[in-house]
């Protein structure tokens, strides 16, 4: 049963299995284990990043092509819900329409980009996605009549998910069963389903072909697989999953703006998580997201302390200022690509 659920792709390492089970239980009981609004937000962010990063891994880790437009699809999903819910009101129809339209737009865009770039060389893909994503980000902040511009959109979602809605009047295990909790569990089961679905995809015959292309493109083509078509389908699938992650984000935040879903910093976060967690292992996305989202808050805090301690040396204090945390993220990223290319999961599996 477990074997079938995980598509025969077991963790293959005792420690990895323990970590994964621990993570699963922690996220499942997060509202009861870590009470408080902030802790629940962090848990929800882990769930959202988990889907986003796993969908990126489908592209980077399994197909071996780099995309810089992943946050664009993430943003399309978030904007789909945001625009639909703020125009049509907080109804289920609005949510459905927003999701379907966002998915359609993302998949179409991914298809067009892939067909243009991948039919020549895979390296075009990285450059063209970067260009398209930049243009899209500019467009989203300029079309303020639709997207709310730099301010973004605040909107309401169906009433069941609002903090005012209570399932029971009495607290259950010390926690009020509010709409936020229902929303959290909706995200949890969506993330779990999507993760298992991606695991299914990468372990299907289709996924094996993707890995063959990653290892040796020329040989895969010689055996008779149309490399362009497989890569294109992979990029379209990956865009669809990223869009759903965006939908989850908008659902949780009930707000969306360019900085929350489209910014290049999120793209960098995703790249870093994939590398740290382990490229080409969907499980790496789960572990990496949890580790990163929790650590992210602390990195800025640590930098603040270090910067204060180094106040005698102005140049060192400037380097360690919390505003420069992207610098340290970049250094961490380069170092992990050099010295830690298989990531946490790869390390655990080869032990």
């Amino acid at each position, binding site marked *: 049963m477990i074997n079938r659920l995980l598509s025969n792709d077991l963790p293959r390492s005792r420690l990895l299995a323990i970590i994964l089970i621990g993570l699963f239980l922690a996220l499942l009981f997060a509202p009861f284990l870590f009470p408080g609004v902030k802790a629940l937000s962090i848990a929800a962010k882990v769930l959202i990043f988990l889907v986003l990063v796993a969908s990126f891994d489908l592209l980077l880790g399994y197909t071996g092509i*780099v995309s810089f437009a992943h946050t664009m699809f993430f943003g399309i999903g978030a904007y789909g819900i945001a625009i639909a819910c703020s125009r049509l009101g907080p109804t289920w129809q609005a949510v459905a329409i927003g999701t379907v339209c966002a998915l359609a737009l993302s998949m179409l865009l991914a298809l067009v980009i892939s067909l243009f770039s991948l039919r020549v060389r895979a390296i075009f893909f990285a450059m*063209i996605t970067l260009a398209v994503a930049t243009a899209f980000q500019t467009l989203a902040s300029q079309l303020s009549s639709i997207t709310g511009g730099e301010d973004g959109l605040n909107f309401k979602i169906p009433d069941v998910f609002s903090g005012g809605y209570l399932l029971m009047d009495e607290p259950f295990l010390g926690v009020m069963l509010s709409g936020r909790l229902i929303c959290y569990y909706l995200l949890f089961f969506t993330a779990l389903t999507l993760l298992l679905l991606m695991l299914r995809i990468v372990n299907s015959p289709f996924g094996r072909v993707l890995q063959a292309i990653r290892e040796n493109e020329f040989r895969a083509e010689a055996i008779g697989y149309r490399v362009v078509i497989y890569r294109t389908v992979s990029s379209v699938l990956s865009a669809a999953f990223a869009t759903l992650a965006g939908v989850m984000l908008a659902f949780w935040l009930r707000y969306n703006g360019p900085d929350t879903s489209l910014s290049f910093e999120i793209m960098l976060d995703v790249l870093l998580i994939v590398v740290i967690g382990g490229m080409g292992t969907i499980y790496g996305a789960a572990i990496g997201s949890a580790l990163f989202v929790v650590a992210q808050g602390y990195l800025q805090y640590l930098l603040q302390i270090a910067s204060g301690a180094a106040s005698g040396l102005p140049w060192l204090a400037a380097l360690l200022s919390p*505003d420069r945390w992207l*610098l340290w993220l970049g*250094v961490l990223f380069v170092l992990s690509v*050099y010295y830690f290319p298989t990531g946490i999961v790869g390390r655990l599996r080869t032990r």
Partner: protein
Amino acid sequence: MNESNKRIDLDWAPLTLVPLLAIAMLPAIGSGSTWLTLTVAGLAMGMIIFIIASGLTLVFGLMDVLNFGHGVFIALGAFVATSVLGAMGDWTGSQQLWRNLLAVFPAMVIAMLVAGAVGIVFERFFVRPVYGQHLKQILITMGGMIIGEELIKVIWGPQQIPLPMPEGMRGAILFGDAAIEKFRLLAVVIGLAGFAALTWTLTRTKIGLLVRAGVQDREMVESLGYRVKRLFVGVFVVGSALAGLGGVMWGMYQQSVIPQMGAQVNVLIFIVIIIGGLGSTGGALIGALLVGLMANYTGFLAPKVALFSNIALMAAILLWRPQGLYPIGNR
């Protein structure tokens, strides 16, 4: 090898694109004098972009290295120029053109030297360890780009810094009704000089011959006993220095510099080298001119879609020639 590679005659079709685009836009813009102003501005911008893109495309052609961190050198050059010009206030403030030029010239030279020196470091730590691995190359050079941009913020601060043009270069020359800014003419002149120097080096010198041969077939050149890797470091450093020069000109063109300018220009030069064909300098020139013209025309006609118009241009050209205007060698 197919037929066209044996003949040496010029592939003229891409050359007609630049005048075609300019003429096609004339009716859309309406007024002839506005068109002339925009066209000169577009050509000036195109020449600046070409100076930046030429290094990137050569590095790719020679060593199959795609440097996503190229933008760092653009921003670096521009920021060095602000410091140098800031220190030479009484020269830039002078009304006499020759004194202005004497101030701008060292700013450009120092910017090129600094960018070239940083290029050596960048090549050693971000490019050399990942030769031949495209995936890691993209990731590492992108990481280098972010680190570089943040270091610029540490040194010069994250805010926008004005880069005022020297007094003598401000203002415009009137051709009938069309106003043409003096700096744009200067940019065209420097761009043409850069192109001429590059073409001369590539076609008339031994080193240029080796670079071109290396772009065509690296292993063959290596087997003849030349150290292509050392040659490559040289090309990388020159490419970085050219990006620094382009950065100075871009900063003066925009009259201000921000640390993110590298990433912004990076997008444009990627479009340019894809249009031109990866590795081709002639293609990069045509691509740069097309992108410069397109950006200025659409900036005037429909500013919101300016960046998308360049992507549409690239898409159209890839439909016509999937490898870019001048595909290189056997890759």
